[in-house]
C-alpha cells in the first residue's frame, strides 16, 4: 500500500470523530482530579508521562504488536485476548478496554475491515462476547486488516490514548485547549522515541496510582466519564 493511503487510513481510525467510544473514558483522570492528585496542566502532563504512557508502552503495545502479527488467525487472536483478560486485574480499566475494543469491532465490521468478521465470530463461538474483545488485540487485528504496518498501527493507537486523556483533561477543567496542544507538542518526541524502541518481550504494567484512581470512581456520583 502507498504510504499516503496507509497514513490516511490510520488518521481515520485515530480521529476523535471515529465512533470508538474511547473518549468516554478518562483512564482514572476524573478520579485523580476529584482526589486532588491532578490539579492543573502540569499535573496532567505528569500523570500522562508517569502513568498512562508507560502503561500503554509496557502492556497495550505488546498485545497490539502480537495481534498485528496474528491477525489472520482468529484462534491466535482469541488466545491473545484471553491472555490480556488474565493480565487485566483492574476491573474498571478492563471494562473500558473491552467496551472500546467491541465498539471498534462493531464499526469495522460494518465498514468491512478484513479480519474483523472472522474475529467477532470466533469471540462469539468461544462465549467471550462479554468478557473478551480487549482494545489492543482488536487494534492490532484492525491495523493489519487495513494494511497498516505495525509501526503505523502503534502510532495511531498511542495517539488515540494520549488524545483521549488530554480531551478528558480539558473537559474536566484541568487544562485549557491551547495548553493541551502545547503539552502534546512537548510530548511528541518522547512518544516517537518510545515507538522507535523495541517492543517488550512480555506484557506487564505497574501503574498503581492510575489503577487505584479508576477503581475508586464511585458509582453513585454524577461522573463525566466511565473510568
Amino acid at each position: 500500500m502507498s504510504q499516503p493511503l496507509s497514513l490516511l487510513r490510520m488518521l481515520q481510525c485515530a480521529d476523535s470523530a471515529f465512533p470508538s467510544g474511547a473518549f468516554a473514558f478518562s483512564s482514572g483522570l476524573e478520579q485523580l482530579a476529584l482526589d486532588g492528585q491532578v490539579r492543573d496542566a502540569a499535573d496532567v502532563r505528569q500523570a500522562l508521562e508517569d502513568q498512562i504512557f508507560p502503561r500503554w508502552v509496557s502492556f497495550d503495545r505488546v498485545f497490539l504488536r502480537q495481534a498485528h502479527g496474528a491477525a489472520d488467525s482468529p484462534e491466535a487472536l482469541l488466545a491473545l485476548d484471553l491472555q490480556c483478560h488474565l493480565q487485566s486485574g483492574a476491573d474498571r480499566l478492563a471494562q473500558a478496554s473491552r467496551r472500546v475494543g467491541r465498539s471498534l469491532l462493531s464499526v469495522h465490521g460494518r465498514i468491512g475491515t478484513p479480519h474483523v468478521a472472522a474475529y467477532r465470530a470466533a469471540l462469539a463461538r468461544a462465549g467471550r462476547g462479554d468478557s473478551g474483545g480487549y482494545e489492543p488485540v482488536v487494534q492490532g487485528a484492525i491495523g493489519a486488516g487495513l494494511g497498516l504496518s505495525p509501526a503505523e498501527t502503534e502510532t495511531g493507537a498511542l495517539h488515540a490514548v494520549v488524545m483521549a486523556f488530554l480531551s478528558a483533561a480539558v473537559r474536566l477543567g484541568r487544562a485549557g485547549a491551547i495548553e493541551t496542544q502545547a503539552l502534546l507538542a512537548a510530548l511528541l518526541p518522547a512518544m516517537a522515541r518510545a515507538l522507535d524502541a523495541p517492543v517488550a518481550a512480555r506484557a506487564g504494567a505497574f501503574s498503581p496510582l492510575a489503577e487505584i484512581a479508576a477503581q475508586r470512581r464511585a458509582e453513585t456520583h454524577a461522573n463525566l466519564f466511565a473510568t
Partner: protein
Amino acid sequence: MAPGISLAPQVAARLAFSVSAGRSYLARQFTPHPFHITRPYHDPGDPAGMATLYLQSSSGGIYGGDDLGLSVTLDPGAQVHLTTQASTVVHDARGGPAARQEVRLEVGAGGWLEYCPDPAILMAGAALDNRVSATLAEGAVLILSDAQLCHDPAGAGRGFDRLDSELRIAGPEGARLIDRFDLRGTDWTARTGGYGCSGLTLVAGGAAQAGPAMIAALDARPDVYAGLSLLGDRDLAIVRFLTRDGVSLSHALRESWAAARRALSGRAPPPRRK
C-alpha cells in the same frame, strides 16, 4: 556468566498441612537454611482448627544471588494462617545477580489459606525476581497479601535496582489472574505518584463478600489511598493501596486481611503478635 543471572541451585522449603479430628496441623516440613519456622499454634479466636505458622529467616533477609523456593500444600479442608515475624529485607545486590524468590501455594478442596507475609523492604540497589503462584481446588479460599516499600539507609535518594514480580492465581477451571510487572527502582516514585509504599490484598473464593468489606476498612483510613477491583467472573477481589510510610502500609495489610476474614467467617480475627 551473564551479569544478573545466578546459577546457584534453588534452596527449596516445603510445608504440608493436613487435618485430623478437625484440627489442621503441619504434617511434613523441610526448611533448609535460611528458612526457619515457629511451632504452629491454634488460636481460639480463629475458625475452629485453623493453624497459624510464622515464617522466619535465619539469614537476615534476601541477598543478591539468593534463589529461594517455598512450597506450601494444604490437604482438603485444612485451614492455615501463614505469616512472617517481620518484614523481609531485600539487600543491595551491588550490581550482581538478582535475588529470586518463588512461592508456590496449593490449597486442597474446601481448604482455607491465608498467606500474609509482611512487606518486602527493597533496599537501595536491591534486585528481586518475585514469583508467587496459588492453585485452588474446588471450594478453596485464599487470602493473600503482597507489599513492598523502598528504603535507602544512606538517605541519598538511591532506589532499588529492579523488581520483577509475577503473581499467578489458578482455580480448578484453570488460570484466573496473572499480575506481572518489571519495574526499575528509578521509576518507583513516578508510578506510585510519590507514595513510598505499595501493596495489595487478594481474596479468591467469596470475593463478593470480602471485596466490599476490605475497601470499606481501607476507605476509613485517611492515610491509605486504595481501590477495589472486583472480578466477579473469576471470584477474585483485589484491593490495591498506596501509603506514605511503612506504619500505614502495615495498617492497610492488617485491616484488609481482618476485614476479609470477618466477611468470610463472620468473626474478626485475633491480632497476630509480632
